[in-house]
């Protein structure tokens, strides 16, 4: 078990390094192929009508004259051992993981990321709770009452749910519930949980429901399919034959087996979501990681882009690792090798 985890962790780190190299390539190397000079790169980050001297100083400051490999090495070093930052009146320690300093605001990237995590995490957690509960229960009921009106309506709605782009449902929900009826706050509302839990939930209600609607659909369909499959299995028949109550059969035996694929899907979905729900956060202008990544790309703020990409990928990797470990708990047939 422990060796397995260690092996997986090493694999995960290797994977993140590959991802970091690709990201670095896209943002640092591709512009150079397109003919960008260090000065051209630096002139993105200066004030208006800056003199050539200013541009030169900034290019030097940001290390654009160094070979790309050296720049990448500096980036890796920052992450693993930290970095030092000379801000003029002194030297600041940027402890590992140091994702560097924004090219534009000069603020360290890591605290910014940490700062935005609660937003994305709150969004993902609340939505996940709704969609898992709603999706799984609708799926179970649909499977048990296969062919009924409930089954047809809920499966139809589920299919509609997966077919709707979030930026459309999000916008409609804002127009109707926020701007029209005034029931929910307008986009951009965010209160930290520790400040006011009720306000926190109220602000996130609309994004939660919209996001959950999108995902619940998939879970309902998956649960229904899984239930239909397992309920036909021999051991279910055996359980019934033993005289177990139907509820118990459904929950203990049917649902448990159907949960395995749900868990996998959930791991991937949740991991991707906490890495930044880009579209949802853009639609509702929530100050989370997704919005941060869009802003970073738009501003070409490379350290921010690197940071948010790696953090996002990291979440996916960790989520999938946790899912794999949970398998062992849920499904006794699974052996970790």
């Amino acid at each position: 078990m422990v060796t397995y985890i260690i092996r997986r962790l090493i694999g995960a780190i290797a994977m993140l390094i590959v991802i970091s190299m690709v990201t670095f390539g896209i943002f640092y190397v591709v512009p150079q192929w397109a003919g960008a000079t260090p000065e051209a790169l630096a002139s993105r980050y200066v004030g208006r009508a800056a003199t050539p001297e200013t541009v030169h100083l900034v290019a030097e400051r940001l290390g654009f004259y160094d070979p790309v490999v050296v720049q990448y090495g500096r980036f890796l070093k920052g992450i693993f051992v930290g970095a030092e930052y000379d801000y003029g009146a002194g030297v600041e320690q940027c402890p590992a993981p140091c994702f560097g300093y924004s090219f534009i605001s000069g603020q360290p990237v890591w605290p910014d990321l940490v700062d935005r995590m609660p937003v994305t995490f709150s969004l993902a957690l609340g939505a996940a709770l709704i969609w898992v509960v709603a999706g799984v229960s609708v799926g179970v009921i649909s499977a048990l009452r296969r062919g009924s009106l409930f089954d047809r309506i809920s499966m139809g709605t589920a299919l509609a749910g997966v077919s709707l782009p979030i930026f459309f449902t999000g916008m409609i929900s804002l127009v109707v519930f926020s701007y029209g009826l005034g029931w929910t706050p307008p986009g951009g509302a965010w209160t930290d949980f520790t400040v006011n839990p009720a306000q926190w939930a109220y602000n996130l209600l609309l994004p939660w429901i919209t996001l959950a609607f999108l995902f619940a659909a998939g879970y309902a369909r998956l649960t229904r399919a899984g239930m239909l499959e397992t309920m036909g299995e021999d051991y279910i028949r055996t359980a019934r034959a033993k005289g177990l109550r139907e509820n118990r059969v459904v929950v203990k035996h049917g649902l448990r087996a159907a949960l395995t694929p749900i868990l996998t899907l959930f791991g991937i979905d949740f991991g991707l979501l906490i890495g930044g729900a880009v579209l949802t956060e853009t639609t509702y202008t929530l100050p989370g990681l997704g919005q941060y990544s869009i802003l970073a790309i738009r501003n070409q703020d490379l350290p921010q882009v690197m940071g948010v990409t790696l953090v996002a990928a990291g979440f996916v990797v960790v989520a999938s690792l946790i899912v794999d470990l949970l398998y062992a708990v849920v499904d006794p047939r699974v052996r970790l090798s």
Partner: protein
Amino acid sequence: MRRKHALAGAATAALALVLSACGGGGGGTPQQPAQSASGGAAQPAFDAALTQVFNPSTKKGGTLKAAHSADWDSLDPGDTYYGYSFNFGRYYWRTLTTYKTGPGPDGNTVVPDLAEGLGEPSADGKTWTYKLRSGLKFEDGSPITAKDVAYAVARSYDKKRFPHGPSYLNELLDWPKDFKSVYDTPDVEYKSAVEATDDTTVVFHLKKPFASMDYIVQMPMTAPVPQAKDTAEKYKEKVVSSGPYKFETNEIGKRFALVRNDQWDAATDPNRPALPDRIEVQLNVNADDLDNQLISGSVQLDIPGTGMQPAALGKVLPDPALKARTDNPTIPRLWYVSVIPDTKPLDNIDCRKAVMWAADRVANQTAFGGPLAGGDIATNVMPPPIVGQEKFDLYTTPENKGDVAKAKEALAACGQPNGFATTMTFRADRPREKALAESMQQALDRVGIKLTLKGFPGSSYFSDYAGNVNYVKQNGVGLATHGWGSDWPDGYGFMQAIVDSRTIRDAGNYNLSVKNPEVDKLIDQASAELDAAARAKLWVDVDKKVMEDASILPVVWAKSLLMRGQGVTNLAYNEGQSMYDYMLLGVQ
């Protein structure tokens, strides 16, 4: 949206030796802004705050709630270059001079702030001396001395750490060769550039004579910084106030709050009524949401001051009660299309003229927001608020909708009777520029000029794309959307950076298309002209020459539709700031 821009290479014989008329105007007799208000209107009406103070008041107290749809470039007075930042910053900093507060044309003149009077130039115009008032204090109670001002100027020289701020003083002052930065070369004296000869005297030493020093020193580089509390790049997190308010909290990128600075003495400051007790600023607020909050009153001040979003305009303009809360000033800004002569066949002037004739100015104006939110149709380069501006039109077309026949004539003269194909760039994150590009495509299509439209991120538009000489050449960019604003209400301040071909370098250009030796010659002539009126005339000639050259297609002279906040008193549009004068504001 940046309003202020540098007089790139301000060294500028431009205003040399000429103590311009406006430099001396209004000096010496600062007035209480509330008193300077001529009458004032309590009844909301469209444009009510343009020429007089709206809802005048001297009532102190309350909280002013402000919001910003993006973030500051920096709160550090040495590292900021946004118009709103210059305007708002005066809550927590004081500079040697400042724009005269209040409405009307006087707003374009400068008056003393930290200084007792305007600057005293030496006979050769190369030395400027400012005397500080007495009784000035930082928020910590320590006195503000001339040394703190000189130090602030010297630290702003460090463009490595403060790349955002203007470069005027870097260019103008006589910096020692071995002086790099107050942090990197702390032992090098910078007396040859700026010095404090005693506690109340700041002396600037210029490389060349420069007339309008008083305008330069109203910029925040002269806001005093106590050396002991200077944390270089981190100073923006904790700026030591010299103005009537100081930072209570400052969460960069999110919000900050200003509270009264009890060390500020109103007796030393005739410009700031300092009415609210507290000013709260929210950053990175969704722009549409900000408008809604401004309408409803939960936000009272939209800090960027560039006007409302389209969704809000659709709500405000048809509603007389809401429209009565707005002001619609013309600002010193031109939106235009650069017609780039490096790209064939636009190297031929007749092909450029074909573009001028074919453009549908009304459609372009609509694309840019229409007559209220966008601006008036521009017929030449210099916008009306620029001193000495003249309106003329070399390409008059019926109803301003373009003249297909004349465009075809021009195409024939250019040897492309069936038209040609070229690329037009725009900033993809600016919907108005996209709409403008689409409108140009439609209009030019009428004469067979086919445009391929390409959007690029605004953050690298000038560094990587439209302002990058190699990119433009390799990709055959013929047209590029562009906008330019001035903080300098004269011809030089507005025109030089966008029409002088000698400013062009490899990347990061703002002059994309004007490469005409005759224009350059006229610029030099205007710069050498001593008489202000004759100089203004020469700038009009520059303008005419550029229009003859057909390398700039003007679109609109920008107007902004500003909304007065609910419960805000003492509102007035200030021409120098080209937005509301934030210094005057109070709350009911």
